Each structure stands twice: as C-alpha cells, then as structure tokens.
C-alpha cells in the first residue's frame, strides 16, 4: 500500500485518506461565460505529469495538498493550504 505523508499526522497508509481531486481555480461567476463555467464544472486536470490534489486524512479530518505524479504515482510533496504559495 502506498504511503502518503500527512503534514499533521505523518506517514500513513493511503487508505486512511480520501482524495478530493485536482485543485481547480475558482473562476469569478460574475465575469465567466457559460461555456467557461461549464468547462470549470466538468473538466479536471488529467495530465500524466505532476498534479496537485486535495486530500483529507479521514480519522483527523485534516485537509492538505499533495503533488503527485499521475503516471508513476510518486508523491513529490505534501503541504498545508497555508503553505501553498506554489499552488497553481
């Protein structure tokens, strides 16, 4: 089983976590066209390289971010939303 390192709880089996999917930029509803809003709703980053995702450590309900290679499954780093300068 894969290990994911929770910034708060340390390394744990990945089945203690729930993935909330790649980070999405929230477009401004006031200025976004219907077409772009539909894209926002249905399109998810599915690239084969490194993706940045939201994860939840279920027993502690702690949410954090992880950079993970979507092909090799290698976790590059995990970090808190507060430390998310690198957040796209």
């Amino acid at each position, binding site marked *: 089983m*894969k290990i994911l390192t929770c910034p708060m709880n340390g390394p744990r089996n990945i*089945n203690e976590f729930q993935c909330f999917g*790649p980070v999405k930029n929230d477009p401004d509803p006031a200025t976004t066209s219907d077409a772009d809003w*539909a894209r926002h709703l*249905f399109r*998810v980053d599915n690239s084969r390289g490194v993706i940045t995702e939201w994860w939840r450590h279920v027993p502690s309900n702690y949410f954090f971010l992880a950079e993970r290679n*979507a*092909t090799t*499954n290698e976790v590059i780093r995990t970090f808190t939303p507060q430390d998310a300068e690198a957040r796209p």
Partner: protein
Amino acid sequence: MPLRLLKYAFSRDYPVTGDIPATPDLKSSYDVVIIGGGGHGLACAHYLSKYHGITNVAVLEKGYLAGGNTARNTTTIRSNYITKEGIAFYKEGVQLYEEMSQELDFNVMFSQRGQLTLAHTEATLRSFHLRAEMGKHAGTNIEVVDAQTVKDLSPHLNMDEGGPLEIMGGLWHADGGTARHDAVAWGYAAQAARRGVEIHQRTEVEGFETDQGRITKVRTNRGDIAAGQVMIAVGGMNYDMAMRAGVELPIRCYPLQAMVTQPLKPWLHTLVSSVSLHTYLVQSSRGEIVIGGGSDPYQLCSTRSTLDMKEHLSEGATHLFPFLQGVRLLRQWAGITDMTPDYSPIMGASPLKNLWLDCGWGTWGFKATPVAGKYMAQTIANGRVAPILEPFTMERFARFELLNEMGATAASH
C-alpha cells in the same frame, strides 16, 4: 465432431489462416486513419471495409494488437442500463454479439448465461426496478426478481438473512453474457486485413498537424501520414491523444483492477454482481473465476495492482460465496479507464472537422465494441454523426444533457 477439425487432422502441415499480416511499411496517406488497435478501432475498420467499401484504412497501434483495455477487461456484455439512449445503444451491442462469430467466421465464444445483480438494500432494489422498467419498455430481456428466485438462479449464494447484507432481490438480465475478449479483436482484425485494411503495430501517434479546423497530418514514430478522416479510440489515453489535437475532453483516468482464480470445474453459471459489495464474479469457459469490482479511489494512469483492492474483492467474493475461501487466486491485473462525468461514453464529432471521437469508455467499453464500430464507421463514411450516437456528443455536458449511468455501472461493468 465439427468438420473444421478434420481439416487440421488431414493436412500434412498446419494450415495457416494468417489472421494478422505482419506490419507493412506506412504509406504517405490514407482515407481513414484509426488511432488505436483495440477492439473498437478494429471493429470500425471492419465495418468501414465490409459495409462502406472504404479499405484505404490504417489502424495504428502503439503496442501490440488489442493489448490495452480490450485485453484487460472482464468481458461483461449486457444492456441493463438506465437511460433510454444508453439502453437503445447497448441493446444493439448485445444483438451484434449474438451474430458476431458468424459475422467474423471466428468463434468469439459469446456465452449468454445471464447476469444477476444483487440488491442488499431497498434503495438498490428501487434502482433495479427503474432499470427493469426502462429496459422492458425498450424491449430488452430484464426483470426484477425476488430473493427466492435469486436463490434459484444462483443456488450457492449466501443470502445473509437477517444480516446487514441480506439479499432482498435481484436484477435478472437473461441476455447478459461474456465473450472471449481477444478473439473479438482478432476476428475484426482478420476480417479487416483480408479486405485491405493495414494494421500497424508498434506505431505510436506522437502528434497532429492541423490547418483550418482539420487534421492534415498524423505524426507517428514511423513517419508522418496524411489522412482524410481520423478516429481516436485509445482507451486510457484518449485525454492525451485528443489534447495533442488541441481537443479537451472531460475525462479522468482511474485504474480498474480485476483478478482470476485457478481453473475449477463449472459451478457458477451466471454472472453475479453485488452493488453494495462492489464485487462481481463470472466463471470463464476455462473454469477460472474472474472477479472484479469498482475503480481505484484516486486518479492514476498506471496498470499497477494493489493489495487493498485484492483484499476488498476477496471480501466481497467470499461474502457472497463463503466456500470460495479455499479457492486460490492466480493473477491480478489492472487497466486504465477513461471516466466521464456521467459514466457514458463520448462518441461522434469533435471541434475538428475530420476528427471523430470514440472515447470515454470508462469501465464499460468491451460490450460496445461491435455497435460502436458499426456506427462510428457509418459516421465516418457519411461524414455525419449517426442518429443513435447523437446523444453521446461531447457537447452534452455544457448543455446539462447528461446521460447518467453511474447507478448502472458502479458494480458491474
């Protein structure tokens, strides 16, 4: 004894049929380039060459023939869906399977032993009734059965009476079945090749050149090709392939895992699947029990297997049939699935005039191999999306006209 066997016995040497010609040199141009040498691409090539007279066709396969999801799926064939668009489409898929061995002169071993899906909750039973009502209205062979009939259909099931997973009833789909997955692809390949279609293995598409909304060139590791029409049908890679042509698809890749036991003498006649346990089982004609279930919990483009999924599937299987505890597992594997937001495929036109999509097949593509091939061929030959495919357009999401099949897909693909 079938006469065909005598031919082998009385031939001095093994009589070669020559199913799949060796990969020829690439020509500079084809009327149709089909990207993806899996079941769907090969079926399309077959229908193009046999029914539309289009034989200047190249099927490009990055690896070996039908080595992607055609090789990795667990071969469920069924039409017990929920949307009327889905049912109409998959129903014809089942019908085409019934005729496939004759059509291809290749025994694909279509084994229509029926599919029994189990309900452990009232909510599941309610959804079964909806699938049954929709199916009956569309003329498919489907009904909701009570717990006693479930027992009659699959006598060894653990009914868990009074327990948390009591079987309350089932969805019985007598038309459901399986086929030999490789044979489907090989049969289409052999037929298409005999009519002049070129099959290029180890030929990878690296990109496209476009001009004025058309693909003008397909770039491969073996050289560039000009193409009149292009279809992509590369399950597990469609998002990337479409992106190379500048087309963005609402697809996310998830691994789907399955496993198989050692061969046993026949004991399980029907396909059995459980919605609550996310497990399904079928005994192959070789005697192995093929066990599958839900997708992996997070996005990944890898065919690695996990122990957790194997444990989960084993739990489900031994709950349904406790005596399977002593049965030995031989192999586990995975495929990469292209999941769409509504668990229905994306077929038809793309923003590029000569690029056609046969994508988003998630966990449910095998059963659609003939019907997708038939209508994609018709679409490409006519330059117009076949009516039966129209609801599956990639535009449906922005229009909120989703074809939601999640409930009919989660437990059995």
